[in-house]
C-alpha cells in the first residue's frame, strides 16, 4: 500500500495522481495540494469516483493556513505533521507528486 502525497494544485498533476491511485492506497493533500479537496466544477479530484478503500487525508495546518478547514468534505481525515510521520511509516512507500 502506497502513500501518495500531493503538494501542488496543478490540474494535470492532480489528474495524473488520481489516475495512479489504487484501492487500499492513501492520499494525503498538503501545502497547496489541499485546495484540490475543495472540489468545484474544474476539479480533477472527484471524491465520488475515487477507488473504494482509498483513504483520504489533508494536513490540518495547511487547511487552517488557507482558511478552508471547514469547507472541505468530511471524507478527508484531518491530520497533523506528527500523524503524517506515523502514516508514512505504515505505508510501503511514499510517492510525492510534484
Amino acid at each position, binding site marked *: 500500500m*502506497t502513500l501518495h502525497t500531493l503538494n501542488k494544485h496543478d490540474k*494535470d*498533476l492532480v489528474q*495524473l495522481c488520481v*489516475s*495512479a*491511485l*489504487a484501492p487500499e492506497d492513501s492520499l494525503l493533500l498538503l501545502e497547496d495540494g489541499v485546495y484540490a479537496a475543495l472540489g468545484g466544477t474544474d476539479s480533477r479530484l472527484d471524491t465520488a469516483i475515487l477507488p473504494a478503500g482509498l483513504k483520504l487525508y489533508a494536513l490540518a495546518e495547511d487547511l487552517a493556513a488557507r482558511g478552508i478547514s471547514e469547507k472541505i468534505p468530511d471524507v478527508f481525515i484531518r491530520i497533523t505533521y506528527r500523524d503524517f510521520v506515523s502514516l508514512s511509516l505504515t505505508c510501503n*512507500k511514499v*510517492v*510525492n*507528486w*510534484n
Partner: protein
Amino acid sequence: MPADTSKSHLLFLTTKSPWTSSNAASCNDMVMTAGIFDQPVKLLFCNDGVYQLLAGQDGTASGMKTLARQLTALDLYGIEQVYVEESALQERGLQERDLLQAVTVLSCDQMQSLIAESRAVLVF
C-alpha cells in the same frame, strides 16, 4: 527479511516538457546515473513528459541542448523498460509513431501495478 526481488526496480515518472524547465533533464540525469550503477530502472513518461519523446526535436536554433538525443541512448545505460501513459498521448494528439523510440503504452491500471511493484517511485 528476505529481499523481494520483484520490487527491486526504481520507477521514474517524468511529467514535464523538456523545453521549459530543467525537470526533464534532471530526471534523465538521475535515470542514467542509476543505470551506470546497475540499478534496475523503469522510466514512465506522463503528462507533458511525452513531449520529450517526440521525434524531430532540435534545440540548436534556440541554443538549447536537445534532451531527445540523450533519450535515444538510454539502452546504452541499460535502461530498456520505457513506458508511456496512454492518456498522455491521446490528450495531446500524439500517437506512438510520432515518438523517437519504441515504448510500451500503459493503461491506468497498468500504471498502478507498476507503482505497486516498484521499490521507490520518483516523480519529476
